[in-house]
């Protein structure tokens, strides 16, 4: 059977900038708005350009801890009131912290728009640092760490792997922070984190949904613009020295199955090699016809296998993870992965396979736009990591421009043994008790 591979024709209208409008307030906060009146709801996202990369040893994890404290009371809306008031008005929220950013995400009926401006301005400007809330939230964060690291084999191995791959740059430490730092954060750490990272000129606000641009602008001027501009976070000066040899780390703990993580240093989100690496990730990992699925999962070597790279402000890591099947020597899965990477370096990807990967990525561009939440996140991420939200609307061209030659060149450049960190979880057999 022959498979016909046609290029996807993206509807130009949909990839146009649609009705996205922006304004930078006098205090430097950037406002990005996309009106969408299909449902009477709004997604409001605040991207603060501060994350664990802006921390220092002794206070690692404080960005994430601060994110939690943003829900624990300010001047007008006291402890618990942000959530209570929001839910009482039909809204809900969450937030996330990464190496690079801290993002606050609000979802609510459009009737609550002004209330949300009032509450967000209150906590951005006048966050309270209640010692009692600090202590109870410390327990919450430690529980989060216990769930996602201490009692998660994958989480524990990831932390170890990143710490080995980055020796100097702050991506070395985990976003959640080292356990001893979690135990030691002080109110001063929180306050200095606020004054370092929470300047309005260090923030991008994205609103998608049932709003009018002029209405958002008026509310922004009323509630957000009076917050004074301040110094943004100091630049992160430390650059990771070039890695000059393979690094191997192991984690021995009780488990039934091993896990492997492979890390390669790659550039930051603005680098032109990144779309090429995204195509490589698709060829290797997306769908049951992908190279790693066929080579590792279908062949019965692994339960799962895949790799990719996320957005980052500084040079980051392309990460593969493999869950070897029981009885399979991790050396065998490792060898299979390295052979697949060598194949990318030595043979051009056939046209049909490249076309397939591009089609998958182009279709995903649509899938990622189904909801107001995903669109708000995309617009904000493009603005912060690529420097311009409008790059979202030319993402299809970036994908189309990737050639087989570029894939070979990029694979040769980054997927080298010297540039690699290999982390392996080795299951410990339990002591047999009679």
């Amino acid at each position, binding site marked *: 059977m022959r498979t016909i591979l046609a290029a996807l024709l993206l509807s130009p209208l949909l990839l146009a900038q649609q009705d996205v409008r922006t304004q930078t307030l006098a205090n430097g906060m950037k406002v990005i708005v996309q009106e969408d009146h299909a449902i009477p709801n709004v997604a409001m996202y605040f991207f603060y350009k501060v994350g664990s990369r802006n921390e220092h040893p002794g206070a690692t994890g404080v960005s994430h801890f601060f994110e939690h404290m943003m829900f624990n009371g300010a001047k007008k809306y006291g402890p*618990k009131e942000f959530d209570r008031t929001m839910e009482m008005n039909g809204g809900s929220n969450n937030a996330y912290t990464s190496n690079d950013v801290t993002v606050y995400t609000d979802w609510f009926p459009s009737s609550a728009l002004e209330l949300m401006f009032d509450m967000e301005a209150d906590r951005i400007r006048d966050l309270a640092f209640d010692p009692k809330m600090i202590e109870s939230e410390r327990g*919450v964060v430690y529980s989060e760490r216990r769930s996602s690291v201490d009692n998660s084999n994958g989480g524990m191995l990831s932390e170890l792997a990143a710490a080995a791959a980055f020796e100097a740059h702050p991506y070395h430490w985990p976003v959640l922070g080292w356990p001893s730092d979690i135990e030691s954060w002080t109110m001063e750490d929180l306050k200095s984190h606020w004054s370092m990272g929470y300047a309005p000129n260090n923030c991008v606000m994205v609103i998608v949904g049932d709003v009018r641009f002029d209405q958002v602008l008026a509310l922004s001027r009323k509630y957000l613009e009076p917050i004074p501009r301040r110094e943004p976070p100091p630049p992160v000066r430390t650059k990771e020295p070039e890695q000059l040899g393979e690094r191997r780390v192991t984690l021995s*703990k009780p488990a*039934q199955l091993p896990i492997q993580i492979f890390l390669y240093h790659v550039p930051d989100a603005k680098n032109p090699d990144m779309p090429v690496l995204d195509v490589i990730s698709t060829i290797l990992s997306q769908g049951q016809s992908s190279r790693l699925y066929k080579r590792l999962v279908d062949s019965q070597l692994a339960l799962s296998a895949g790799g990719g790279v996320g957005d980052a402000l500084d040079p980051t890591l392309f990460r593969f993870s493999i869950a070897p*099947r029981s009885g399979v020597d991790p050396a065998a899965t490792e060898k299979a992965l390295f052979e697949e990477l060598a194949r990318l370096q030595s043979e051009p990807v056939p046209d049909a396979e490249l076309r397939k990967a591009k089609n*998958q990525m182009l279709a995903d561009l649509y899938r990622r736009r189904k*909801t107001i939440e995903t669109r708000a996140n995309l617009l904000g991420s493009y603005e912060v990591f690529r420097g311009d939200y409008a790059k979202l609307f030319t993402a299809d061209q970036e994908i189309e421009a990737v050639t087989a030659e570029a894939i070979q060149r990029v694979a040769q450049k980054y997927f080298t043994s010297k540039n690699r960190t290999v982390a392996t979880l080795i299951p410990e057999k339990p002591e047999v008790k009679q």
Partner: protein
Amino acid sequence: MKRLMLALALCASLGAQVKLPPYTREVLPNGAVVYYMQRTGLPLVSFRVLVRGGNESDPAAMAGLASVTAELLRRGTAQRTAAQFSEQIDALGGTFGAGTDEQSTTAYAEFLSKDFNAGLALVADALLAPAFPEEEVRKTLSRRADGLKSTKDSPGAAINPYYRSFFFGSAHPYGRPADEASYDRIRRQDMVDYHQKTYVGRNLIVIVAGDFDPAAAKARVTQTFGGVPPGAAYAFAAAPAAPKNSEPRVLLVDKPDATQTYFVIAQPGVRRSTPDRVPLILVNTLFGGRFTSMINDALRVTSGLTYGASSSVQMARLDGAITINSYTKTETTAQAIDLALDVLKRFHDQGMTAEQLASVKAYVKGSYPTRTVQTADQVANVLGEMELFGLDRDEVDQFFARVDAVTLEQANAVARKYYRTENLTFVLLGNAAKIREAAAKYGPKVVEKQARQPGWAGM
């Protein structure tokens, strides 16, 4: 992250009632029910196919049969090898997946609108003409068995099947999560027979949603699914007795390296079609279904014992369970469980205030549009559920009115009726040596299992 994203906890708009968008429903001569729901804006079309039966239709000794059958649909068909099928789906930038819940198998595929015909042909090939090649069957079953080991390495994932098998027991279809032994018993022929019996006209619900040409779509879909043999609608067994404890029951699962204890507190609940469903959604959201819920407020916000505590109401064809779920460090196991029980008792005894009810009504309505009618997929999901459970469109169209109509008296009656404090089922997964004593507090005897052993609670 401030909190784990619960799988879309029920939540909604203060404004006018949200209505289902226009759709058409048609019954083909062979009994297959087809829905068409047009939604322009994105050039995507999805096919959602439901097959009645689901995990309930697994033979008692072959738990997982319906689910493995679903997984294998795409792994070799009459016309395509597994590799060809995957090449073609991926080449279109399409997706295809299938899985089961308590009462149905759902296959879901999505394509660009321009690939409507090619996509539908792939969907039909997988659903109607799977070949179940011996080699693929063997590989899938063996991978599933290893998957169980991986699940047991992850305490947050493992607690759920332990709880289900312990609470419902193996005599109940909800109490038989697939395990090593059940996978070992499944043969290729079982899948062939299961497919032949259940993937039939009277048992199919097909939902086409997204951007498509209605006339052309109708002709194509009718031709594709109209030729399926009518067969018989799946005859669900009479409801087995719902679990009823005559005393509290406790299961302790030992994972010696765990540094926190995961726990579930379960009690009998309702079925999806219960007339109490709207008040119960409100009551559960208030008790354990949102960030400021009583349970999360007590265990997380006020005491810092956990990153998350919640409660959920199983909404399936048969009477299910109402559960409290959380985790805490090993040392505070009893403190956290005691606190959860205190909150439960207070809720049962004192119920809620008018202000709390008003808040939870606003909350549930406020996010309802984002969860129910925002995307074509969400609407397709609602239509499938309506058909499967025999509900009508008022389920959505009248939802706000039904929420508004719930009185404080009704809500408190529902709280008293379902949130009971006696004869509960407790499942704890953690370091048994350190929490054995705590576990013993909650029932007259403690059943113990090792997370390394095959099987679940295995009663």
